[in-house]
Structure formats: structure tokens, C-alpha cells
């Protein structure tokens, strides 16, 4: 079960919410490597967003939460039959042979293939977490390369697109419920799905930088 049957009415990590504007800043690099002096603020209104603040830190800093827009699944994921079977397979550690399509495995050199297959279980698509279809999340069409259009109910979040929203109505889960915020909340993850999100998010930030690795 991906979603909780009945949601708690308070904001939790992984909740799907609506109504929050997304904003980010784009800066123009200055000449000579100095601090950029020109900025542009972009604002969008995604239909749905997911809460990425850990439950205990919701509203703990300026009544704010971290959000991430729900986006369509990526077209190239359709190449992998294991993902296509259920895109939430992206959320869990995979054996190496399922992390790429059989066709991709076939394009590797024997050495690359051996190294890949010997690598053990691990996450692929580390930056993404996929939300299962639900009646409250409208389905959409996506163009699958070489196959035409396909209707999809899964949505993804890309951790690299996280943003912060501050609002007085945002309350810590242990505070009394607020009607405005509870109407913004559409879906709550099951305990199991929230644990998967928490662990993948943690792994995403915990992965050692390639630049810090010693040797190969």
C-alpha cells in the first residue's frame, strides 16, 4: 500500500499538497568570477507538490516547509521493463541487472557488463522518488519513444528541485490542525512508503562525492 487509507490531517513528510507556488532564483554570472549581480526570480504553480521536510522539522524554522514539485515520469525510464512494470520500483534498491534495460546491458563491453553485474544491490536514479497512481492525481499522456503516446498515473519528484515555502498556517505535526493547511493536503504516504522516501532522501544526501573518493 503506497498511500495511507485515511490521512492524519497534519502535514507529514511525503504528503502530496496543492496550492503552493514554486520559486527559484536564476543568477547571471558576473565577469571576472565575482559574485553575480543580476538575478531573476522564477515563479510557477505546480499542480501538486510533495513535502520533503522531515516530520519533526515541519514549521520548526519560520513556519516553513520544503517542497518538491510532482513532475511526469521521464521518457527514458520506459526503456527499462522493470521500471515500466511499476515505476515505484525506482524508489527501492535494485539488483544490478534490473537497474538498466536488457538492451543497455547488451551495449556494454564484456568488462563493463561484468563490473556492473558484480556491483550488488543499489539505488538507480538516485535523485528521484516516484509516487504511485491515485484517483486524486490526474493521469496524463506521455510520448514513449518509438511507441506513441501512453497514459500514465505515476508522478515523480526530483530532489534537485526542492524549494522552501513559509506560511503562518504551516503547523508542526504535534500542533493543532489548521483548516487551510489540511485542505492543501491531498494524500499521505503509508508508513512503509514514507520510510522508503526518508531512506532514499537520506541516501541521496549521504552519498560520498566522487571527488572525495580515493582510488577506484
Amino acid at each position: 500500500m503506497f498511500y495511507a487509507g485515511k490521512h492524519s490531517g497534519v502535514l507529514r513528510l511525503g504528503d502530496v499538497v496543492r496550492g503552493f507556488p514554486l520559486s527559484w532564483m536564476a543568477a547571471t554570472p558576473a565577469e571576472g568570477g565575482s559574485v553575480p549581480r543580476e538575478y531573476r526570480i522564477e515563479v510557477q504553480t505546480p499542480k501538486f507538490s510533495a513535502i520533503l521536510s522531515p516530520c519533526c522539522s515541519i514549521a520548526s524554522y519560520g513556519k516553513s516547509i520544503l517542497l518538491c514539485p510532482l513532475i511526469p515520469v521521464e521518457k527514458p525510464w520506459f526503456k527499462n521493463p522493470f521500471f515500466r512494470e511499476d515505476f515505484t520500483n525506482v524508489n527501492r534498491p535494485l539488483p544490478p541487472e534490473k537497474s538498466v534495460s536488457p538492451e543497455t546491458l547488451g551495449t556494454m563491453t564484456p568488462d563493463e557488463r561484468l563490473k556492473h553485474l558484480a556491483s550488488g544491490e543499489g539505488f538507480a536514479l538516485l535523485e528521484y522518488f516516484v509516487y504511485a497512481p491515485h484517483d486524486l492525481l490526474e493521469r496524463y499522456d506521455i510520448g514513449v519513444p518509438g511507441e506513441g503516446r501512453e497514459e500514465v498515473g505515476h508522478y515523480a519528484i526530483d530532489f534537485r528541485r526542492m524549494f522552501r515555502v513559509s506560511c503562518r498556517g504551516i503547523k508542526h505535526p504535534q500542533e493543532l490542525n489548521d483548516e487551510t493547511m489540511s485542505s492543501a493536503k491531498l494524500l499521505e504516504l503509508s508508513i512503509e512508503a514514507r520510510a522508503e522516501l526518508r531512506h532514499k532522501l537520506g541516501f541521496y544526501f549521504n552519498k560520498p562525492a566522487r571527488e572525495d573518493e580515493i582510488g577506484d
Partner: protein
Amino acid sequence: MEPVESGEGATGEPRQAFEILTIPFDRYTVKVRVGSGGEFIDVIEVAVSKDFRTIQQRITSTGFHDVAEFYRDDDKDDD
């Protein structure tokens, strides 16, 4: 239950029709050989299943497949 292989002679002719099934059982996976009619022949292997691990345990021993290059969408626009 998932069939994993069938018996076949060196010439490619069927030697004795059987299937090997992998059956999850508690913390173990059991491989059994069954005949073409589904009758039990013998147990091939009993192994510890890794699926009993919790998500936390799986994550702790988890690595990362560096496969992003195989999922690049060249038509995609960045923000």
C-alpha cells in the same frame, strides 16, 4: 513460484521434462524440481532469503548504480 530452468540433454533434446521452481518459505528460498505434470521430484537447494531484511537494513548495505547516462532525455529542457 517462479520457474527458473528446464532439463535438457547435451544434444538439445529434452532429457527428462522437469522445471525448477523457486519458492519463498519464511526466511528461506527453496528450489524444488517438479515433473512436467507438476509432481514433486526433489529439493535442489535451500538458501537464506535476503527479503527478510528491513528497509533500514537493506539501505545500510545499499550501493548506488551509476546509470544516469542510460536514462538521459536529450529532448528535455532544463528550467
